[in-house]
């Protein structure tokens, strides 16, 4: 079992970081607030695998739910609309 920092129900913020390189966290979600819904295992880090390395240590991956209206400035759909994105732990911060 690997240590995980977050669990379902935790409020998180996606890091507003913009490094070069291969990053799986979509640009549009960086800096947004969401809620962890599920831990989906720890996996070799794609940011390392992309450059031919082994991706170790594995990184915990979570499903994180966001309100569409919080993500898009002029969202016209129903207020209850959400989206879920898989995000690695090192891209998340605790949100109080």
């Amino acid at each position, binding site marked *: 079992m690997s240590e995980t920092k977050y669990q379902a129900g935790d409020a998180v913020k996606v890091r507003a970081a913009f490094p070069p390189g291969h990053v799986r966290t979509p*640009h549009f979600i960086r800096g947004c607030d969401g809620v962890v819904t599920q831990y989906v295992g720890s996996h070799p880090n794609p940011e390392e695998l992309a450059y*031919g390395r082994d*991706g170790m240590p594995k990184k915990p991956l979570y499903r994180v739910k966001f309100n569409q209206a919080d993500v898009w400035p002029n969202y016209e759909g129903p207020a209850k609309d959400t989206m879920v994105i898989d995000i690695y732990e090192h891209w998340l911060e605790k949100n109080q």
Partner: protein
Amino acid sequence: MTIRRHHDMGGLDAGAVEQTEHDYAIWEKRVDAIVKVLSTPERKILSTDELRRGIEELGPGVYDNLNYYERWISSATNLLLEKGVITVDELGAKMADVEARWQKDRDTGS
């Protein structure tokens, strides 16, 4: 100003979405097969993440001009060159061979 890499275009205007099904060309199936064979656990010559990184590094103009499998084969080719699996000279010679064969077939109308 935050830096968005060209491929990371979620949320941008994308125009109309083509909703018709289409079959893959033979060369597209070959590209898919070549990449799969290079990525098998026994070989591990390429990983999906390396292929994606190579596609992201094609640059905005090239990225937009190539179709899906053209991006795959461009990235795979660059990775094979980087890793020393093939040389530029070997690739150039083979491309010339294929082109000559194609020309000959065309000239003889076969």
